[in-house]
C-alpha cells in the first residue's frame, strides 16, 4: 500500500514569495491533516479536512496560509507571502476515519514532509 506522498521535499524561497505544497493521502483515507513542525518542536496542527470539508483550521494563519482539498482526495497548502518564521517542515497526514462502518484506529499516517526554508 502506497504511503502519504508529499512534494516538493525541499523548497527554498525568499521572504514575501509564495510557495505551495502538495499532498496525496493514502487511498481511501477520509481525513487529511496539515501540520507545521518548526525545528526542535512538536508538530502543530494547521488544518484538518474530513473528505473535502474543513473540520478544524483554528491554528491556520489565514492571512497568509490557505489550504484546499477540492475533490476530497489530494490537498494543497499555500503560503503567500512567506515570512522568515514560516521556515519549518510541513507534514501531511491522513487517517481512515470518517464515513459509516470504518474502523477508527486513530492512527495518523504521515508523509515524509516538505522542508521550507525562507531566506
Amino acid at each position, binding site marked *: 500500500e502506497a504511503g502519504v506522498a508529499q512534494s516538493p521535499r525541499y523548497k527554498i524561497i525568499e521572504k514575501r514569495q509564495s510557495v505551495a505544497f502538495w499532498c496525496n493521502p493514502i487511498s481511501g483515507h477520509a481525513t487529511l*491533516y496539515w501540520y507545521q513542525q518548526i525545528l*526542535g*518542536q*512538536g*508538530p*502543530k*496542527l494547521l488544518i*484538518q479536512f474530513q473528505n473535502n470539508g474543513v*473540520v*478544524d483550521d483554528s491554528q491556520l494563519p489565514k492571512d497568509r496560509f490557505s489550504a484546499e482539498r477540492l475533490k476530497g482526495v489530494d490537498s494543497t497548502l499555500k503560503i503567500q507571502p512567506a515570512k522568515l518564521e514560516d521556515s519549518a*517542515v510541513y*507534514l501531511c*497526514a491522513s*487517517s481512515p*476515519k470518517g464515513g459509516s462502518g470504518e474502523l*477508527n*484506529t*486513530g*492512527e*495518523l*499516517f*504521515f*508523509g*515524509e*514532509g516538505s522542508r521550507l526554508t525562507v531566506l
Partner: protein
Amino acid sequence: AQKVTQAQTEISVVEKEDVTLDCVYETRDTTYYLFWYKQPPSGELVFLIRRNSFDEQNEISGRYSWNFQKSTSSFNFTITASQVVDSAVYFCALSDANNNDMRFGAGTRLTVKP
C-alpha cells in the same frame, strides 16, 4: 485547552539500558486519546500506540511498554534494553474523543550509544 508536556528534551543512554520517556497531559475532556509517535532521522512520524482515557491498563509490546495513570495525567513510555535503532525523537500526543484536535508535545530526543 489540550496540552502535552514532555519535560525531557534530550536523553542519552548506552545500549541495553532501560529508558523512560515522560509525558504529562492536560485536558478538560473526560474522553480522550493518548498517543506515542516515533520520528527517526528520516523525518516520517511512525505511530506506536493509542490509548483511550477509559483504559488504564498498562501495555507491553516487545521491548516497549506504556504506563497510563489518570491520577497523575501521565502516559509514560519505557524502552527496555535499548538499542541503537531506538535513537529518534519521540512525541506524545493527545486528541479529543473524536480523534480530532491532536496536540503533540515538544518531543524527547533519545540517543542510544553503542
